[in-house]
C-alpha cells in the first residue's frame, strides 16, 4: 500500500484528481480531463491569436491516418463546434500508391471520415502523375525515392486542395517536427527554408495558404491525447523510407528533450529569430512553364522528375547538376537552389 501511494499518489495540479501525465511544455502534472481541456484550449489560443481562420472558410486537413493528422482532425472538428468557428472542414489524403503502407493507412482515414463526420477527398499519384510510388521504386530503386515522393506529395496536396476549392490547408506538423526541421535546415545551409520553416502560415502569396495549428504542440501530448481518447490512428513506418539523415536529427532532438523538454520550443524560437542577411539571395518565385505550379525554375521539380521518369532517365532532377533545362538555372545554383537532394523524406518538407 505504501508503494501504491508512491505510484498513484501524484495529484493533478489543477483539480487534485489523480494525475495521468506530466506535460513536457510546462512540467505540470495533470489528470486526464484537465489535460484534454488544457490541450484543446492551447490549440484554440494558437488559432485565435494567429488569426489562422476566418468564419465561413473551407479548410482541408492533410490527413495521412497517422497520429498527428488524426488528432488534428478530431480537435479541429471539436473546436469548430465548441467555439463556433464556422469552418467547413474536409479531410484530404494523398494515395502515393505504396502497397502494404498507404493502402492500410487510407483505411484509417476512411474510418476517420465516418467517425468525425468530415468529407474525404483522396488524390493519387497514379491519377496526377501516371505513376505509383511502387512503380517509381521498381524503376529507380530505393535510393532517391523519397525525393520523388516528397515533391509529388507537396503538389498533390495543393492539387487536392484546389479540387476541394478550399481556402486553406492545415497539416499536423508538431513542435518536435518543426524543431527537427530547423535543425536540418541549419545542417543543410538551406537559408530559404530556414527562414520560413517556423512560420505558422506559409504560402499566403500562393493560391492556398498552409498552416500548422500544432506548431507549439509537443508530440508526446499528441500521442497521449490520442491514447487517452482511444483515437484510431495508423502507425507503420513507410516501407521505402530509410530516413537516415532526418532520423539522426530526430534522435538528437528527442535526446535533448529528455534532458530538458523546453529545448524543443527553444529551437523553434531560435528558428523564428534568425535574421537572414540581406546579401543572401533568395530564390525568386515564378510558375512552371509546363504545369503552372509555383516554381523558382523554368519547370517545377515535379515536372523535372516526371520528365526523367517518362524518358527513362529517372536520375534527372536528382542532385545538383541537372543540365536539362539550362536557362535560369545558374542563378539558383549559386544561391542555394540545391533544393532537395539529400532530403530523405518529404513528409515534413515545408
Amino acid at each position, binding site marked *: 500500500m505504501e508503494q501504491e501511494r508512491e505510484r498513484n499518489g501524484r495529484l493533478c495540479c489543477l483539480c487534485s484528481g489523480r494525475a*495521468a501525465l506530466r506535460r513536457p511544455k510546462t512540467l505540470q502534472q495533470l489528470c486526464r480531463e484537465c489535460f484534454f481541456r488544457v490541450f484543446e484550449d492551447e490549440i484554440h489560443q494558437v488559432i485565435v491569436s494567429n488569426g489562422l481562420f476566418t468564419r465561413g472558410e473551407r479548410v482541408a486537413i492533410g490527413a495521412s491516418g497517422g497520429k498527428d493528422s488524426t488528432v488534428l482532425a478530431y480537435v479541429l472538428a471539436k473546436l469548430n463546434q465548441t467555439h463556433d468557428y464556422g469552418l467547413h472542414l474536409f479531410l484530404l489524403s494523398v494515395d502515393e500508391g505504396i502497397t502494404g503502407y498507404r493502402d492500410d493507412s487510407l483505411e484509417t482515414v476512411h474510418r476517420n471520415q465516418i467517425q468525425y463526420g468530415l468529407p474525404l477527398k483522396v488524390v493519387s499519384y497514379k491519377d496526377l502523375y501516371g505513376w505509383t510510388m511502387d512503380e517509381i521504386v521498381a524503376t529507380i530503386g530505393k535510393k532517391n525515392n523519397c525525393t520523388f515522393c516528397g515533391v509529388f506529395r507537396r503538389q498533390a496536396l495543393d492539387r487536392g486542395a484546389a479540387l476541394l476549392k478550399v481556402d486553406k490547408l492545415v497539416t499536423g506538423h508538431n513542435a518536435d517536427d518543426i524543431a527537427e526541421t530547423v535543425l536540418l535546415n541549419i545542417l543543410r545551409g538551406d537559408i530559404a527554408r530556414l527562414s520560413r520553416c517556423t512560420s505558422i502560415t506559409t504560402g499566403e502569396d500562393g493560391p492556398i495558404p498552409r498552416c500548422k495549428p500544432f506548431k507549439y504542440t509537443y508530440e508526446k501530448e499528441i500521442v497521449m491525447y490520442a491514447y487517452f481518447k482511444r483515437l484510431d490512428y495508423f502507425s507503420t513506418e513507410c516501407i521505402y523510407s530509410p530516413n537516415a539523415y532526418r532520423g539522426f536529427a530526430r534522435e538528437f532532438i528527442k535526446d535533448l528533450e529528455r534532458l530538458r523538454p523546453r529545448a524543443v520550443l527553444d529551437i523553434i524560437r531560435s528558428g523564428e529569430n534568425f535574421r537572414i542577411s540581406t546579401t543572401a539571395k533568395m530564390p525568386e518565385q515564378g510558375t512552371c512553364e509546363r504545369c503552372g505550379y509555383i516554381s523558382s525554375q523554368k519547370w517545377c521539380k515535379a515536372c523535372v522528375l516526371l520528365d526523367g521518369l517518362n524518358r527513362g532517365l529517372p536520375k534527372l532532377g536528382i542532385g545538383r547538376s541537372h543540365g536539362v533545362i539550362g536557362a535560369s538555372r545558374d542563378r539558383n545554383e549559386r544561391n542555394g537552389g540545391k533544393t532537395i537532394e539529400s532530403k530523405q523524406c518529404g513528409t515534413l518538407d515545408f
Partner: protein
Amino acid sequence: MQLTLEFGGGLELLCDSKKIHNVNVEIQNGEDKLTMKDLLSWVRTNLIKERPEMFMKGDTVRPGVLVLVNDCDWELSGQLNTSLEEKDVVVFISTLHGG
C-alpha cells in the same frame, strides 16, 4: 507476477505484431520487488524479436517511447524505479512513426 503489456505506435511490429501480451515475470532472486528497470530488461530478452534499438537505448526506453503504468505516465511514478504489482498494465507507445 502477472502483468499485461501493451505495445503501440509501431512497437508491436518488434514483437510479432502482437499488441497485447499477458506475461508472467518472476522477481529476481534476492530482490523483493519488480521494478520497471527489471521489466524492461525482461521485455528486451523475452518479447522483442527484432531491432531492439527501436525500443531501448542504454538501460531505458529510447527517447520518444512513452510508458504508462496503469494508464499513468511513468514520469510521474519514478520511471525506471517504478515498482510493479500483480496485474499491473504497462503500455509502451512509440511516438516516432509518421504523422
